[in-house]
């Protein structure tokens, strides 16, 4: 009966692997819980005792600073013990398999695995093999998904715009290589956003992206018109094979967000970016640091969102 590996037999979140396939009530439950954790992160004592005695393993097979750090802070604020493993530089290079690595950590009494992996689906493989009391959170797998980033984007949008029901959201740039875009699109449509646009050159848009329920624009000016939310994506040079683009300068000319282009969006539009930013490639500094930018609040909300996800899955 149960074919969603993220949910338990009661339909509750047991692992967070992808936003795709999560029902609306589970998504809004995470956002509501995160709102309460924002209250905790604003106190002087920023800790609650929920995960006392639990061990969280940050398993990063791919480098990351922000995501790993915010997961670490989130786990510590829940009073868990956190172990960071930079696996790229450890056993895997000696030939140990992914599941052997996980079994060994399981033998060290792990409760929660936070997994970042270059291959799409790696967190699913781990989730299929962990013990009943162990939980898996996907911190980004290949080009597939980055659900906690998608959730913190959703949280940020809800914080500034309250209701998804009347929003026009434009996602700009390298959609093809972006697991962030994929997660966000699924979340936005599940929560009832009437218009989600993707803007980028044909070479950086996945084939058949319309099937996700988005409107496609190759012209940035046209795509930004009347937008409430503008989400800029990082140009992922390390994921690029071959020449999809003439040059970074050329990209900035057509798809870089400048104050001039932003003026086409609504006057109260917010500008988001999952980071790390390439200033002068996908976003101009005057916009990144300007009054519409909510890029740094996104990072702060990310901690509360990750606290919510960890405490929900570890309790189910």
């Amino acid at each position, binding site marked *: 009966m149960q074919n969603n590996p993220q949910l338990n037999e009661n339909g*509750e979140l047991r692992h967070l692997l992808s936003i795709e396939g999560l029902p609306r009530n589970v998504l809004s*439950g995470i956002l*509501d*819980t995160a*709102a*309460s*954790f*924002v*209250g*905790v992160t604003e*106190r*002087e*004592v920023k*800790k*609650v*005792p*929920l995960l006392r005695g639990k061990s969280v393993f940050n398993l990063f097979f791919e480098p990351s600073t922000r995501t790993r750090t915010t997961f670490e802070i989130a786990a510590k604020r829940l009073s868990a013990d956190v172990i960071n493993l930079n696996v790229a530089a450890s056993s895997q290079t000696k030939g140990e398999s992914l599941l052997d690595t996980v079994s060994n950590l399981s033998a060290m009494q792990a409760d929660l695995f936070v997994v970042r992996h270059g291959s799409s689906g790696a967190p699913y493989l781990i989730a299929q093999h962990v013990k009943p009391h162990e939980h898996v959170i996907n911190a980004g797998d290949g080009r597939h998904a980055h659900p906690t980033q998608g959730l913190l984007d959703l949280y940020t949008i809800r914080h500034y715009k309250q209701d998804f029901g009347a929003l026009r959201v434009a996602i700009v740039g390298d959609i093809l290589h972006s697991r962030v875009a994929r997660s966000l699109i699924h979340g936005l449509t599940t929560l009832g956003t009437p218009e989600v646009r993707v803007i980028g050159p044909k070479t950086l848009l996945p084939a058949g992206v319309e099937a996700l329920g988005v409107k496609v624009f190759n012209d940035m000016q046209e795509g930004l018109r009347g937008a409430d939310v503008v989400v800029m994506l990082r140009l992922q040079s390390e994921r690029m094979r071959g020449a999809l683009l003439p040059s970074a300068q050329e990209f900035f000319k057509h798809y870089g967000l400048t104050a001039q282009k932003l003026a086409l969006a609504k006057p109260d539009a917010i500008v988001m970016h999952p980071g790390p930013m390439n200033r002068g490639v996908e976003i101009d500094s005057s916009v990144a640091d300007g009054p519409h930018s909510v890029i740094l609040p996104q990072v702060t909300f990310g901690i509360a969102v990750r606290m919510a996800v960890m*405490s*929900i899955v570890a*309790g*189910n």
Partner: protein
Amino acid sequence: MNPLPDAEKLCVQLAAELKPAVKPSTAMIGLYTGGVWLAERLHAALGIAEPLGTMDIAFYRDDYHQQGLARDPKRTQIPFAVGGRDLLLVDDVLYTGRTVRAAMNELFDYGRPASISLVVLADRGGRELPICAQYFGCTIEVAKGMRLRLLRDDRGKLKLALQHAE
């Protein structure tokens, strides 16, 4: 079975009892959900200067490892400094005492109050921890499988009700 006491009358009675205890250092915190309703009434009736604090103890519950996280926990909001304050902690029904323990743990993450007094509308017995209420509207004996709850209707009227526990 005896009818349950009138919650509105108990409110008035509690406010009168609390009145002499209110000092300049007094502040009040209500526990979600019923405790907040009661606290709103008492806070207004007593004219306490500091705004009312509200607390959801979801992140401090002692049954998280059995029950998981409560759905939709409310945000705790304490709009005053807790340190040195004489706190009136308000809940609707006192039963095992576990909610009060969790609330005190959470409170101490905000500061070191001078004192905490517990105010409840009804004490139903059945304590599992060494906790008691300094101010209570009434005591009601309730069978173990039953739940005593405070309800609030559309017009804001408070009422005690007995329900079968799930």
